[in-house]
């Protein structure tokens, strides 16, 4: 990790790994779709059209229409921002909160460290999905709440990772050197410890993205996240489920969208893990 990773070097590495490059391209595409959905469709994701309900995929309706006559392709396009945005938000929240807590715990040590570590024990000992179900039910069924609930559970992993990095870093000579020259604690924390602890955290965040997309859509699927008519992909599967046997395209395509984007994140994440930790390469 001490080696400085130039962007050019990184890009060249990525070019050598076809699946990872494919993943990166897909993510880039998804990013563009979420920023400018209008470039990809001219229809309205909410417009009801009962006359054209449950039409199979055709040239007019690329992926068919749903039970209200809405264009499924358009809804998936508009759902990209919601589905992936929610996941990015959840991971970012967990990273920031977990990172800060871990930083403080690792650097302060003593009872604070003990309290934080035992708290993370609780969160790590239990199944995240079930825990999230309970927490989101308490917060109220809503997409924002499912993001908050998941981040409220996921942070513990980042706190653990950050803390162990901090313990490693504070034992390094440059930190001892800084302390010996009389640099204050907050400055050491901000200038020396935090930046060096950030790399593994961002790596973990990128690897976790796929899993978080699945978890959030699973919560929506169970009725604990985005509520219809919002075109979030998990919620689209829930409402479309009833039509599976006669109108297969209604729940199938939103699920396929989840699968493809999670795969893109996993292809890239797998490669990032390899690049960042050559020892783990098998």
């Amino acid at each position: 990790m001490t080696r400085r990773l130039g962007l050019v070097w990184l890009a060249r590495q990525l070019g050598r790994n076809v699946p990872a490059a494919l993943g990166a391209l897909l993510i880039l595409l998804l990013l563009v779709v979420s920023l400018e959905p209008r470039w990809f469709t001219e229809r309205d994701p909410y417009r009801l059209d009962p006359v054209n309900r449950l039409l199979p995929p055709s040239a007019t309706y690329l992926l068919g229409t749903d039970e209200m006559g809405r264009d499924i392709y358009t809804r998936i396009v508009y759902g990209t921002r919601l589905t992936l945005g929610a996941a990015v938000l959840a991971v970012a929240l967990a990273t920031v909160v977990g990172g800060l807590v871990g930083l403080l715990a690792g650097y302060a040590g003593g009872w604070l460290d003990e309290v934080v570590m035992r708290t993370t024990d609780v969160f790590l000992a239990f199944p995240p999905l079930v825990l999230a179900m309970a927490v989101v039910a308490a917060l109220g069924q809503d997409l924002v709440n499912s993001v908050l609930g998941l981040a409220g559970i996921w942070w513990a992993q980042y706190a653990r990772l950050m803390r162990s990095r901090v313990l490693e870093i504070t034992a390094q000579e440059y930190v001892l050197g800084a302390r010996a020259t009389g640099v204050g604690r907050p400055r050491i924390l901000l200038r020396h410890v935090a930046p060096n602890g950030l790399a593994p955290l961002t790596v973990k965040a990128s690897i976790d993205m796929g899993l978080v997309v699945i978890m959030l859509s699973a919560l929506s699927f169970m009725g604990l996240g985005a509520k219809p008519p919002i075109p979030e992909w998990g919620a689209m599967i829930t409402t479309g489920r009833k039509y599976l046997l006669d109108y297969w395209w209604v729940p199938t395509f939103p699920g396929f969208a989840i699968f493809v984007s999670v795969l893109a994140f996993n292809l890239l994440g797998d490669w990032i893990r390899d690049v960042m930790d050559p020892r783990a390469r098998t």
Partner: protein
Amino acid sequence: MLLYVARRLAALAFVMLGMSLLMFVVAHALPGDPARVAAGGVEATTEMVRIAREQLGLDRPLAVQYLLYLGRTARGDLGRSVVTRRRIADDLLEFFPATLELTAAAVAFAGLLGVPLGILSAVRRGRLSDHVSRLAFLFGISMPVFWLGLVAILVFYAVLGLLPAGGRIDYLLTPPPHVTGFYTADSLLAGDGQRLASALRHLVLPALVLSTVSLAFIARMTRSCLLEVLGEDYVRTARAKGLREALVIYKHALRNAAVPILVTIGLQLGTLMGGAVLTETIFTWPGIGTYAVSAVENQDYPALMGFAVTFSFLYALLNVVVDVLAYRLNPRVSV
């Protein structure tokens, strides 16, 4: 050994205490009045609700309420479901065998297929089949299990007509006499071929769907455990002796990689139980997952909390058991 078990159990007790506090806070934040629920719901008179509130200690300070909650939960009293009007503990007990049967079948699938695939890809490291298996792994972990279930129903039920779409047994058949709660085992015990065949046909699809992620994971772990062992000196010695490669792998390498592989499979049990919540919903499999999701739909919050507490406890307990077994098999494993 005893000391290790004691330490793990103490840690479990501590973690459970923390969990109960979290669950208490969550339960407190949930909408709905538990006193009214206990008194009989909407029809209860104000007086009945007041008495229920006193009985449950809901008029006492929060700290006392927490202790009361802790006492009730420890005794297995999870309250009553708003919908079924029965004790939640009884509900869960009734639905649990179905979940366990599904999970056990999925773990069996995942282990029986995942380990050989992992061995294959370790032995052929760097060759085409290894790359293919790596991609297959990424595909496997990228598939949302609830979507895979829908697609499986579409293909195997709607298009091919090979397997049923849901339930545990044909609706024309009564369940086999209750012994273990596993329909397959109970049919077998009763010597009932018809029911056994039906139960198996219903079990195959959900178990396969549920096992995908674990299968991918187990194959991957088997591969890396085996590769690690294959780099050891004693493997080189065995090869230098001129042993056949198959013998080196099965007698020397695999035996030493067995413990971490078994632990991986054991830990997947808990993960699969979590995945079962979603799989059951898709296949209308009458387990505790379906129970929990319908509790969400019906806003039956006491039932949802009862499920979460019980499930979390079982999950944590299971992982401790696996850890202890791993320790027993290989004392070098230390935590």
